[in-house]
C-alpha cells in the first residue's frame, strides 16, 4: 500500500547546526505515528517543514506517491496537512467559528471559486520573483531564463562600472567602486551568509572575479585615450541599457497587474468577513465536524472562556475544517491535565477510525506506549530507531532517545527528617483582580525531606512559591524560615536566609537571556565577595565560578561567554540549578524544575535535588508532573483552588488517588459536595 505521506532524506541546516540529517519515514493511512526525541532532537523542525514553516535544504516529500513542494502553511493545508501547535494559535476574544474560519482560503467568494486561480497567481509571482536571482539557487521551471537573466545582469553591472569610470568624474568613481568593494567584502566576511554578486559563484573564488573586474575597470579607465575606446564602449553600454529598460518595464508591469489582482482578492475576503456569523454556513459546518468526530465543541462559544483542553479541540476542528487528512500534533499533552489528555486520546482514536492519520510528537514515554501505532525516535537530528509499542518498554525507548541507559526512577534512601525549616500558616493572597488565589495554605517542610506539591496548574502553586520567595504580596497568614518571619520579606532577605529558588518560568524570571553564562551564574550573588570587591566586579572570580559550575553541572555550551539565549532548555535549567545550588542553602524551592526538559536533563536535575535533600536541606517541590512528584517526594500535598486538600506520605500515595484530589477530591461538585467557584485559567 502506498503510504499517504512519505519523507525521503530530508535535511535542514541552521547556522552552525544540522537540525535534520537525512530523515526518512512514511505514514500509513489511519495510523498514529509517534515521534519521540529529546529537546533539540529536531522533531519540531521536521514538523515545521511538513507544515511549510521551513523549507528543507535537501530531500523530498511525497503525498500519496506524488512529489510535492510545501513552501508555506497554505501549501500544507491545500495538501491536507494540518498542524496543532504546542502553543495555540487562537484569538481569545473571538468565537470558535470565527477562529476556525480565520485565514481560510478555501471558501467561495460570492459564489465564485477564485481560490485556485489566486493560488496560481501567487505561485507564478513566487516563481518570477527576481530576488532569488541573486542567490544562485536556481531551481524550478524558469531555470534557463533565470540563468540567462543572471548573465545579462552580471555584464550589465560590469559595463556600468566601466561606464562610470570612463565618463564620469574619475576620482569619485574610483573611490565609489573601491568603497563598494570594501563594503561587499565586509558583508561577505562579517555578515553570516556570503553575499553573492551576480557575476560570481559562491565561494572565495568570487573575490578573484570581483578583483579582476575592478582591475579591468581601472585599467580601461587609465587607457581609454590610448586605446580610443570611449565611443565604442559608450555605444554598447547605451544599447544594453536601453534593452534592459524595456524588459524591466514589461516585467514590472506584469507584477503590478498581478499584484493588483491579489490586493483585490484580499479586499473581497475582508468584505466576506463582515457578514454576520449567524448568516453564514460556517457555524453549521463547524458543528457538523465537531459532531462527526466526537469533539463536542460549541461553535458560538468565546475561545477565552474555554478550558485549555477545549481550545486544543478548536485547533483540531480548525485543521479538519480545512479538510486535513494528516494531523500533526506537537506535544499536545504538555498543557493538559491527565483527564484532559485521556479525552484527547479518545478523540485521536475517533479521528483514526474515520480515516485520518496522525503524527504525534512528544517526549512522554507513557503516552507514546499507550496511543501510538508505531514509534519513531529522533536523536541529534537523525532517525535512530523505530519501535512498535507492543515490543518496546519505557526504558528501551528512553535509551534510544538519549543514546544510553537512563535510570527512570530516582534512587533515594530514606533520610530521617529533621527540624522544620519552612513553616507556613494560613497563607492567603489575592490576584490583581481581587480574586483569592491562596485560601489559607498551611504546611511545613523539614530538613532532609522533599515535600511535593501536586496539582493541576493554576491552582495557586505559582502564587504560593512567589509569596514564599518575596515576589508576591501576601494578604494574611504567616511564613517562617527557621523561626524568622518572611511574610512580605524582600527577595533578597529571603535568599540571605539560605533559600534557593528554581523559578517556574526559567526564561522570564530565572535568566537574563542576553547575558553570557557567567553573568547568569552570579545573578543572585553579584553583590557579595568573592564576586564584588567594593563597587567593582571581580571578573576573574566570576569567570572561575562559571567554569567551575559549567563543569560540575555538565552544562553543554561552547564557552562560558555564550549568551544563555543560545542554550537549549535543558542547559538553561542546568545554569539555574547550578547557580542556586552552588551556595550553602537550608531550603530549596523548586517550581516545575524539569518542565519541557528531556529525559537526560530530568535525570540529572532530579539527582541534584535528592543530593541536596540528603545533605540536610529542606526541599519544596512544585510540579505539574505527577510522576516527578511521586518519584522525588517524601511527602505529597495536593493543591486545589488555592488550598491544600490532601497530604499523604509518598510511600502510601497512589496515582489514582492523587489524580482524584487534583480534580477537586471526592467532595467535588460532580459528586454532590460543596460548590467551589471555578476560575478561568
Amino acid at each position, binding site marked *: 500500500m502506498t503510504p499517504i505521506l512519505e519523507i525521503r532524506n530530508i535535511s535542514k*541546516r*541552521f*547556522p552552525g*547546526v544540522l537540525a535534520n540529517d537525512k530523515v526518512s519515514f512514511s505514514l500509513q493511512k489511519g495510523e498514529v505515528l509517534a515521534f519521540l526525541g529529546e*529537546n*533539540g532532537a529536531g522533531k*519540531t523542525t521536521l514538523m515545521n517543514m511538513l507544515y511549510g514553516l521551513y523549507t528543507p*535544504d535537501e530531500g523530498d516529500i511525497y503525498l500519496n506517491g506524488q512529489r510535492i513542494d510545501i513552501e508555506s502553511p497554505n501549501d500544507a493545508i491545500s495538501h491536507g496537512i494540518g498542524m496543532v501547535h504546542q502553543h495555540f494559535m487562537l484569538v481569545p476574544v473571538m468565537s470558535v467559528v470565527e477562529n476556525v474560519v480565520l485565514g481560510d482560503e478555501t471558501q467561495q467568494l460570492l459564489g465564485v471559486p477564485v481560490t485556485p486561480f489566486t493560488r496560481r497567481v501567487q505561485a507564478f509571482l513566487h516563481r518570477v520573483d527576481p530576488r532569488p536571482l541573486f542567490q544562485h539557487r536556481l531551481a524550478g521551471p524558469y531555470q534557463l531564463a533565470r540563468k540567462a537573466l543572471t548573465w545579462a545582469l552580471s555584464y550589465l553591472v560590469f559595463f556600468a562600472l566601466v*561606464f562610470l569610470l570612463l565618463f564620469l*568624474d574619475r*576620482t*569619485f568613481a574610483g573611490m565609489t*567602486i*573601491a568603497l563598494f568593494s*570594501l*563594503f561587499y*567584502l*565586509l*558583508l561577505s566576511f*562579517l*555578515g*553570516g*551568509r*556570503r*553575499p553573492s554578486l551576480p557575476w560570481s559563484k*559562491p565561494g*572565495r573564488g568570487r*573575490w578573484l572575479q570581483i*578583483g579582476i573586474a575592478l582591475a579591468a575597470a*581601472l585599467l580601461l579607465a*587609465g587607457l581609454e585615450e590610448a586605446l580610443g575606446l570611449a565611443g565604442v564602449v559608450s555605444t554598447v553600454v*547605451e544599447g544594453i*541599457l536601453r534593452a534592459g*529598460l524595456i524588459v524591466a518595464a514589461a516585467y514590472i508591469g506584469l507584477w503590478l497587474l498581478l499584484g493588483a489582482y491579489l490586493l483585490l482578492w484580499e479586499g473581497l475576503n475582508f468584505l466576506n468577513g463582515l457578514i454576520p456569523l449567524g448568516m453564514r454556513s460556517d457555524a453549521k459546518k463547524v458543528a457538523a465536524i465537531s459532531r462527526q468526530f466526537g469533539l463536542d465543541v460549541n461553535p458560538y462559544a468565546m475561545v477565552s472562556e474555554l478550558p485549555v483542553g477545549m481550545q486544543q479541540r478548536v485547533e483540531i476542528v480548525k485543521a479538519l475544517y480545512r479538510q486535513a487528512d494528516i494531523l500533526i500534533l506537537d506535544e499536545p499533552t504538555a498543557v493538559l491535565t491527565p483527564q484532559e489528555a485521556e479525552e484527547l486520546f479518545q478523540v485521536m482514536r475517533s479521528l483514526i477510525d474515520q480515516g485520518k492519520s496522525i503524527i504525534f510528537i512528544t517526549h512522554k514515554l507513557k503516552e507514546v506506549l499507550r496511543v501510538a501505532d508505531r514509534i519513531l525516535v529522533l536523536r*541529534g*537530528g537523525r532517525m535512530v530507531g523505530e519501535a512498535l509499542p507492543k515490543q518496546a518498554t519505557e526504558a528501551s525507548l528512553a535509551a534510544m532517545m538519549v543514546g544510553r541507559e537512563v535510570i527512570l526512577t530516582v534512587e533515594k534512601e530514606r533520610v530521617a527528617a529533621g527540624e522544620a525549616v519552612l513553616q507556613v500558616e494560613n497563607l492567603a493572597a489575592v490576584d490583581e483582580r481581587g480574586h483569592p488565589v491562596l485560601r489559607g495554605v498551611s504546611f511545613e517542610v523539614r530538613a532532609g525531606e522533599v515535600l511535593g506539591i501536586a496539582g493541576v496548574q493554576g491552582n495557586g502553586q505559582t502564587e504560593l512559591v512567589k509569596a514564599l520567595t518575596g515576589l508576591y504580596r501576601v494578604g494574611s497568614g504567616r511564613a517562617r524560615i527557621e523561626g524568622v518571619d518572611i511574610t512580605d520579606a524582600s*527577595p533578597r532577605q529571603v*535568599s540571605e536566609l539560605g533559600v534557593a*529558588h528554581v523559578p517556574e518560568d526559567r526564561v*522570564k*524570571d*530565572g535568566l*537574563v537571556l542576553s*547575558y553570557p553564562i557567567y*553573568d547568569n551564574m552570579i*545573578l*543572585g550573588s*553579584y*553583590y557579595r565577595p568573592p564576586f*564584588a570587591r567594593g*563597587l*567593582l*566586579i571581580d*571578573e576573574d572570580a566570576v569567570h572561575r565560578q562559571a567554569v567551575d559550575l559549567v563543569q560540575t553541572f555538565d552544562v*553543554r555550551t561552547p564557552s562560558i561567554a555564550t549568551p544563555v*539565549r543560545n542554550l537549549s*532548555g*535543558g*542547559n538553561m535549567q542546568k545554569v539555574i540549578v547550578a547557580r542556586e545550588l552552588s551556595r550553602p542553602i537550608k531550603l530549596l524551592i523548586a517550581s516545575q524544575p524539569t518542565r519541557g526538559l528531556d529525559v*537526560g536533563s530530568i535525570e540529572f536535575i532530579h539527582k541534584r535535588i535528592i543530593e541536596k535533600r540528603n545533605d540536610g536541606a529542606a526541599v519544596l517541590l512544585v510540579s505539574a508532573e505527577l510522576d516527578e512528584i511521586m518519584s522525588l517526594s517524601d511527602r505529597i500535598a495536593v493543591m486545589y483552588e488555592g488550598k491544600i486538600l490532601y497530604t499523604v506520605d509518598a510511600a502510601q500515595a497512589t496515582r489514582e488517588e492523587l489524580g482524584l484530589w487534583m480534580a477537586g477530591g471526592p467532595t467535588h461538585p460532580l459528586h454532590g459536595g460543596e460548590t467551589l467557584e471555578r476560575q478561568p485559567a
Partner: protein
Amino acid sequence: MSANQPDPPAPGFLQAQRRRLLPLFLGLIGLIFLAVVVSILTKRGVDLILPLFGLSVLLLIGLITLRAGSFNWLRGAVIPLLAVTTALIIGAFLIAFTDRAVLQALGNFFDDPGGALRLAWNAVATAYSSMFEGAIGSPTRIADGLEEWIMSGEARAFRSAMRPIAESLTRSIPYVLTGLAVALGFRAGLFNIGAEGQFLIGGLCAVVVGFSVTGLPAYIHLPLAILAGAAGGAVWGGIVGALKAWTGAHEVINTIMMNWIAFRLVEWLLRGPLEATQGTRRTAEILDTAKLPRFFEPPIRLHAGLFIAIAAALFVWWFLWKTTWGFEMRTVGANPNAARYSGMNIGRNVILAMALSGTLAGLAGVSEALGLTHNMTLGFQAGYGFDSIALALLGNSHPGGVVLASLLFGVLRSGGTRMMSVAGVPLEITSIIQAMVIIFIAAPAIVRSLYRLDIRRDEMEPATITRGWGS
C-alpha cells in the same frame, strides 16, 4: 550559510603561504598608502592616486580573504554600517531626483539614457564630495596649508583648512553626551525622551552660574558651573525616575512633559528675569572664568567639552560593565523579572538611571553653553536631545557605538551645511539620510533581507536556535 553551498577549501598554496603572505600584504598596503599620502602632499603624481587606491583595495581584499576568521569581532558593526550605506545610496537617488537638470534629462530618458545617468551621477558626485569636504576638509587645501605653515610659519591657511574636521568634532560633542544619556537609559530599560529638556536645564544652570557668580578664579568657577549644569540635568531626569519608581508613572510621558516644562520655563526666563538687554531674548554673556577653554585660534571652535565627552563615554562604559551597580542596572533593563527575582531593588535603579541619564544630557548642555554659545538664547537645545534617541539606537546603546554614531551625525551635520551651499542640495536631504539610517537600524530585518544576510542566532527565537547544542 544555510542556503549556500559550503565554501571550497582554500587552495593548498594559500594555506601553506598564509603566514608569509600576511606581512607582505600589510607592507604593500602600507607602502601604497604612504605613496598616496606623499603624492597628495607633494602634489606630484596625482594621476597615480586612483590606480594606487584600487590596488590597495585589491590587496586589502586579499588580506581579509586570507585572514577571514580574525575579523569576527567586527560582526556587530555590520548592520549599522549597512544601514548608513543604504541610507547614503537612497540619499543619492533623492539628490539625483531633486536636481532640476536631471529631471529635465529624465524627460527624454529613452532617447538618451546615458545623458540622464551622467547628469544624475554628477549631481550625486558633487553633493557627496562637497559633503566630504565640508565634514573632513579638502585634502589639497590641507596639503597647501601645511606646506605654507612649514615653509613660512604662517598657520592661518592650515587652520582654516582644518576647520571642517574640527567643526565636525565640535558638533559631535553634544551628540556624544546626549547619546550616552539615552543609551544609559536604554540599558536600564528606560526610554528617556527628555534629553532635550535636561540639555536645556543643564545649559541654563551652567549659564546662570557662569554670569552671576563673580570673583572666583577659573579653576573654581568653571567646575562650579559644570557641576551646576550636571546637577540641573540630574534633577530634571531624577524627578521622572522617582515618579516611575514610586508611582509607576511611565517615563516616556513624564519626560515629554518635563521637556515642555523646561522649554516654557526657559522661554519665560529669557523674556524676563534673565534677559540681559530688553528685547534680545538672551542672557548675559558668561564670565571668562567660566568658559571652557578652546584649543586653537579662530576659526577653529573645538573646545574642552571634547574631554568631558570622552570622559563621560569612558565612565559610562566602566560604570555599566565593571561595577555591581552597573550590573544591577543592566539586569533591571534586560529582564526586570529576573532582577526582582535576584533581589535587586528596581525602584532605586530606575531613579539612579534616570538621574545619571539626566546628568549626561545636562553635561551636553553645559559643554554647549560654556564652550560654544557662552550665553542662553531661545532655541538653544537645537534638537540634540531628540537626535540622541537615534544615536543611542545607532550605537546599539553601547558607549563606543554612541561615540561613533555621534561622529557620523556630527559629520553629516557639518557636511550637510556645505552640501547646501556648494551643491545646492537642501539641508533636509541630510535629515532624510539621518532618518533613514535610523529606520534601517531600528528594523534590521530590512537590511538583512536587502543584503540577504542570515538572521543572526540571537535574533532568532530561542525555540529554533537551541537545537543541536545537545542537552
